[in-house]
């Protein structure tokens, strides 16, 4: 049960307030980056490489420059004059803005065209692409071959590097884990591949850069989830040409979905900024869908060997994972600095596994860079898939019901705060009730009966469970930073004389509904109606510094900052109220919206009275006004969890698959807005079944991408998507000021193994123990053929 402390009019936590931001979106009045039009604005378009690996022999600009309306063609050599042809990635690797000699993946940016009109720019790109000469080289596509002696050395620019190995990372107790495996009654092992996928937000990436020479001020509207960090990066990268941070304004307007893909800095942004700086006019660059899918950061691409040890009674005793990570030609992942493989070490999941060891090697290949999240908190999806899949493999091996085996191994309620074998301190959890609730909702026992009957008739159905634990809300700044900037977040709250408020944040919504939920947090803490609290984010000239919105960190960090800022405001309000009521502060008690005198509740001052007094009648010696800023540094991450069950029907003749039911029980602690949380879960579930059943970026041996458009990279439509059945348990976070945890990514993380487990469950009687995602009808058809089910 969700309890509300405030009235509906105030609309604090727990109310399903309708979203404030909807008003503009339902009228087509949202303002996205591509909607920005400035007088004299020029258009930029980019010539891209047709090859995955090639030397650039020559670039002839003349044909493009001859087209009327073309103002400039910009190459790597041009940028080199300003030392802007390379840039740092968020992982302290380096990435070309534009190449001077070699292209490293198909669709890489090779040169840019600036023209007065988007059609002319496109003409010029075509002319330019015909005027670039390459010398093709044999690309390195298979990451398993990256360390072979005859593999080409892809990054000779990196001093001292003699092979394509980027980094090795390991964690856990290797020796103890080996011993656990030696002593185990049972060991299961699977090769699990998590394919390369793309977030594919419906809005692509782009920017409008406008440099005003007279003031020396650069304004950039851009599709970024982290505007403040971007401003700092621009200042660090382009400080030497005169762009200093106080004269850079990054505006992140409405964003058409981010999901992690709008965290990195893409070459296009940098070239557009450079072009505007050099030409002195606004320059717009908006990539098209194929550029977005083919060149922007990918997600995942982990090749894992997963092993689980247990007693014959099914008690898990050790976990061991070895991973090969394909990073493309540069490590442009978006992880906190100290965590090259993100928070993968959450991989022991919801289970009390005494010892674990995981190691990982990252390599270069001739593919686009990335390693960003796909609506998940830093490599958590890969981890959850590994543990949830291998748990089912163990159940199968032991002949146990997968639910049963989970109940046996869950970390128990009284073990929290729980320190995992890989070092995380889980803040709170209660796993069994969530799984039990999901089983009741789906009718687990009856489904198992149905399955047995169907099997006897030669029909195929599977029931897949996933009981995941997430790790979100980076993060405590002692451990978490991006390029050295600590991962706190901020809120700045001002109360106006009439008792209304404005609050600004360092985060940036991309559809999560911050304008509503942040207002609700403040309404809860101050008693000012949420409708009267204006929320702003995304403009670095006005909002306080913050690290942005990704990895479900907004509620855990900025949401907490809002609560803390509100507490500071309440402290001052108490002083004013005491003055107005002529009592001492200790004599006052707070209830949402007012202070009253203990024992004499009729003597009270509302927050509105107090706000007015703060500007008109404040105590002598006190500063006027009523406002506060808070930079919140969380003491720990939050660990939301849940249990999902997927029921899958498979046509034994065609291998066509249909999700019949999908039940999702989530626990994200205290809930700010149930309607929005449920919406986030729906969306995350769709992005969970997507890589489980449909999505994968596929490359051939020459590095050609085979599905780089929306015609062949399959996002689920309304037809493939089932009707989601959702529910909650509530286990508050003990350290978050509101008891809340992040939520929007749990479903993306939890859903894929539920789907994969359902498919394997449907085929388990045939001896199938694993199928890699995406579990396509073709893969399943081949299995059915192999097993003689299809003749």
């Amino acid at each position: 049960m969700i309890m509300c402390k405030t009235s509906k009019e105030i609309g604090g936590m727990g109310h399903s307030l309708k979203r404030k931001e909807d008003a503009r979106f339902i009228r087509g009045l949202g303002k996205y980056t591509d909607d920005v039009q400035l007088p004299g604005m020029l258009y930029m378009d980019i010539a891209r490489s047709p090859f995955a690996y090639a030397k650039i022999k020559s670039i002839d600009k003349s044909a493009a420059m001859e087209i009327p309306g073309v103002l400039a063609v910009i190459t790597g050599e041009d940028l080199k004059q300003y030392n802007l042809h390379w840039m740092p990635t968020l992982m302290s690797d380096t990435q070309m803005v534009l190449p001077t000699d070699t292209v490293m993946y198909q669709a890489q940016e090779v040169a840019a065209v600036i023209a007065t009109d988007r059609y002319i720019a496109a003409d010029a790109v075509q002319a330019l692409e015909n005027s670039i000469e390459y010398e093709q080289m044999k690309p390195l596509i298979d990451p398993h071959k990256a360390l072979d002696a005859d593999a080409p050395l892809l990054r000779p620019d990196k001093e001292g590097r003699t092979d394509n190995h980027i980094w090795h990372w390991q964690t856990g107790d290797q020796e103890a884990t080996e011993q656990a495996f030696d002593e185990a009654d049972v060991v299961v092992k699977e090769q699990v591949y998590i394919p390369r996928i793309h977030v594919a937000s419906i809005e692509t990436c782009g920017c409008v850069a406008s440099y005003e020479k007279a003031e020396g001020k650069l304004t950039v509207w851009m599709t970024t989830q982290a505007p403040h960090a971007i401003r700092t990066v621009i200042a660090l990268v382009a400080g030497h040409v005169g762009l200093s941070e106080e004269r850079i304004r990054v505006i992140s307007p409405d964003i058409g979905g981010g999901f992690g893909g709008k965290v990195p800095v893409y070459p296009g942004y940098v070239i557009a900024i450079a072009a505007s700086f050099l030409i002195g006019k606004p320059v717009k660059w908006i990539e098209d869908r194929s550029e977005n899918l083919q060149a922007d950061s990918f997600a995942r691409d982990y090749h894992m060997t997963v092993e689980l040890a247990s007693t014959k009674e099914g008690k898990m005793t050790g976990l061991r994972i070895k991973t090969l990570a394909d990073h493309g030609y540069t490590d442009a992942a978006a992880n906190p600095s100290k965590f090259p493989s993100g928070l993968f070490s959450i991989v022991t999941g919801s289970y009390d596994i005494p010892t674990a060891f995981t190691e990982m090697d990252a390599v270069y290949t001739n593919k686009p860079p990335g390693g960003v999240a796909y609506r998940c908190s830093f490599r958590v999806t890969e981890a959850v898939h590994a543990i949830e899949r291998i748990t089912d493999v163990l159940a199968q091996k032991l002949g146990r019901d997968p639910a049963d085996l989970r109940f046996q191994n869950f970390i128990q309620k009284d073990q929290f705060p729980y320190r995992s074998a890989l070092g995380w301190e889980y803040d709170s959890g209660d796993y069994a009730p969530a799984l039990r609730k999901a089983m009741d909702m789906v009718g687990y026992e009856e489904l198992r009966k149905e399955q047995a009957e169907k099997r006897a008739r030669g029909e195929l159905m599977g029931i897949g469970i996933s009981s995941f634990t997430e790790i979100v809300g980076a993060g405590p700044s002692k451990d978490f930073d991006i390029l050295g900037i600590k991962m706190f977040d901020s809120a700045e709250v001002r109360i106006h004389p009439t008792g209304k408020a404005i609050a600004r944040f360092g985060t940036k919504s991309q559809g999560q509904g911050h304008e509503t939920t942040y207002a609700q947090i403040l309404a809860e803490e101050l008693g000012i109606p949420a409708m009267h609290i204006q929320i702003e984010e995304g403009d670095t000239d006005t909002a306080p510094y913050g690290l942005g919105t990704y990895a479900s960190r907004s509620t855990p960090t900025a949401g907490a900052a809002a609560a803390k800022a509100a507490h500071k405001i309440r402290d001052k309000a108490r002083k004013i109220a005491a003055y107005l009521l002529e009592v001492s502060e200790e004599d006052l008690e707070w209830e949402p919206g007012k202070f009253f005198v203990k024992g004499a509740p009729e003597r009270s001052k509302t927050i509105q009275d107090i706000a007015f007094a703060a500007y008109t009648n404040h105590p002598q010696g006190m500063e006027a006004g009523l406002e506060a800023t808070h930079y919140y540094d969380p003491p720990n991450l939050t660990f939301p969890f849940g249990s999902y069950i997927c029921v899958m029907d498979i046509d034994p003749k065609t291998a066509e698959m249909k999700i019949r039911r999908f039940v999702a029980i989530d626990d994200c602690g205290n809930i700010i807005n149930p309607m929005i949380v449920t919406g986030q879960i729906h969306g995350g579930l769709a992005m969970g079944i997507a890589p489980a059943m449909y999505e994968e970026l596929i490359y051939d041996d020459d590095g050609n991408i085979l599905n780089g458009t929306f015609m062949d990279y399959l996002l689920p439509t309304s037809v493939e998507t089932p009707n989601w059945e959702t529910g909650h348990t509530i286990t508050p976070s003990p350290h978050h000021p509101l008891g809340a945890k992040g939520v929007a990514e749990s479903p993306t993380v939890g859903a894929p193994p539920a789907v994969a487990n359902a498919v394997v469950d449907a085929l388990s009687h045939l001896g199938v123990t694993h199928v890699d995602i995406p579990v396509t009808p073709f893969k399943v058809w081949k299995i059915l053929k192999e097993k003689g089910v299809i003749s």
Partner: protein
Amino acid sequence: MSKHSITIEINGESFTQEVDSRKLLIHFLRDDLALTGTHIGCDTSSCGACTILLNGKSIKACTFFAVQANNQKIETIEGVEQGGQLHPLQEGFHQEHGLQCGFCTPGMIMRGKELLEKNPNPTEEEIRWGISGNLCRCTGYSNIIKSIQYAANKLNEKQEEAA
């Protein structure tokens, strides 16, 4: 490049303008007329973010030339609210939380409009197939279906009242 003078009625207002023969309708609407409510998500007719109504029929404006719309009637998201009254579809998306980032929403609403005009009482299955040419990456679709059902009920109520 040849230029053509075209006249199009957009949201009840007539526009006459010179356009290049190759200009796409989506760019004419967005860049020339600043009607930026119609979005671009793919330019290959795959996502539906650019859906508008041409003579009441939904089309994808990213793969349609402006000149093809000469002497025709167009309705975009900006014309859906009438006399300060939200259309039941707009209301439905707000009430049922049928949008998150809002990028697909104008296309969904335009598509929903034609759908309900042709079939005032669609089943869930019919709505799912009806909007299958419109991608949404945020909502998981369930609430979009509910939003359209909300609008269907509301429109039917209005019909009954009028009768």
